[in-house]
């Protein structure tokens, strides 16, 4: 067996472990949290009173307008100066949730706005209140519109979690860095890390197209499939 293959095989275990214990949970939790925060922010911007709209816009402006790496550094290295000390993982998680929330709020906002206003009226005309119209009529349609751009964010997030290495989270990429530090084989190890990210994001793309097919059932071209 060639040297490079042996090295890849030997490091596969530690890399996958770091991915399983840090990268995957960080991705899933950040996305779930970011989605909730993004939804609430979108609601605030679309339906909230004026001060809430201003707060939501300010938040999105800040977190879309500054680099994610700088945000992570501020939370992990900066906040201790004002007495807020966080462990690496929660610090990274908070940073990612805030960042993902800012981007997804725009996706959710545009998806909700894209549902024709006649759908609200039809819901109200059969006696629904705002909450019922939102849950039963608007969100199912907005959800379908939002799946492709949300999948984009999700896939970007998987790769962005490698930035957590910079705030000492021992995730996949940091595990690779540590092996490089002892083996001096950056080319092989970083290719291996890249391949694992590629497998992860490919799996997510597959999931996305499945989800789109399932949600597309009522669309014109799929006809009357129930």
């Amino acid at each position, binding site marked *: 067996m060639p040297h490079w293959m042996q090295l890849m095989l030997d490091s596969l275990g530690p890399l996958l472990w770091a991915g399983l214990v840090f990268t995957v949970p960080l991705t899933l939790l950040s996305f779930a949290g970011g989605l909730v925060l993004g939804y609430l922010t979108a609601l605030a911007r679309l339906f909230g009173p004026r001060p809430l709209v201003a707060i939501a816009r300010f938040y999105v402006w800040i977190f879309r307008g500054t680099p994610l790496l700088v945000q992570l550094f501020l939370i992990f290295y900066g906040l201790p100066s004002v007495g807020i000390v966080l462990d690496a993982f929660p610090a990274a998680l908070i940073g990612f949730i805030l960042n993902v929330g800012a981007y997804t709020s725009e996706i959710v906002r545009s998806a909700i706005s894209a549902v024709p206003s006649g759908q609200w009226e*039809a819901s109200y*005309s059969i006696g629904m209140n705002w909450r019922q119209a939102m849950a039963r009529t608007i969100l199912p349609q907005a959800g379908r519109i939002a799946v492709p751009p949300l999948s984009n964010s999700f896939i970007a997030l998987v790769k962005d979690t490698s930035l957590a290495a910079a705030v000492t989270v021992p995730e996949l990429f940091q595990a690779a860095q540590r092996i490089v530090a002892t083996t001096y084989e950056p080319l092989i190890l970083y290719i291996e890390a890249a391949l694992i990210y590629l497998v992860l994001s490919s799996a997510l793309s597959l999931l996305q197209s499945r989800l789109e097919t399932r949600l597309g059932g*009522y669309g014109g071209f799929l006809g009357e499939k129930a």
Partner: protein
Amino acid sequence: MITLTRIVKRFGEQTVLHEVDLTLGEGTVTALIGPSGSGKSTLLRCVNLLEMPQSGELKLGDSHLVFTPGKPADRRAVLALRQQTGMVFQNFQLFPHRTALGNVMEGLVTVQRWPEDKARRRALDLLDKVGMAHKADAFPASLSGGQQQRVAIARALAPSPRVLLCDEPTSALDPELAGEVVAVLRQLAEEGTTMLMATHDLRLAASVAHQAVFLEAGKVVESGPSRELFSSPRQARTAGFIATLTAAAGGHGAN
């Protein structure tokens, strides 16, 4: 009896309805006619409060609402009123993510809290009534415009409303498809459904409505039994408008 009294509706600076009075008898069909921008759709939408009047009074079944400028109506009273009305829209507005059956069941299950199987039976009966039972499992995108509108009528009727409001129910349809919708509405009228419809469709107005109200620039110009109003209008303005409708109907096969 449904009564609207001195209804005023303004959009910004523009007054769209000037103290309009309207009375609908139980079991009667009233057609609102008038040129575009006359306020007929707005008046119709004031009955189920999709548009909120600035002032006036509305009595419908158990609901009695009084509108005062600057004071929003009580939300619960609005919801209670809407549950006693059904609405059919010009461009159908079926829920695209639900089947025909799902569309008709939606109000019963979500708003009226009916058990699923009871709602399904009622929905199937209604789809049968509008001749759409064979398409119960079809999604709106696979239905023709006339079929979609018939499903929309079934959806509006599901909660047994006191009045069916129809906003240009045939305007988005070609004459043939409009014909199916007119037939369904005529049948409903014969069964004693109280209806109020804004329409340009002379065939619909003449063959279904008992009463007609001619609106122009937010005011009632003339109202009366539809046959009389169409054949011998008292006001010159009404006669002029009806002449344009008749000319249009002649040119487009009675639509």
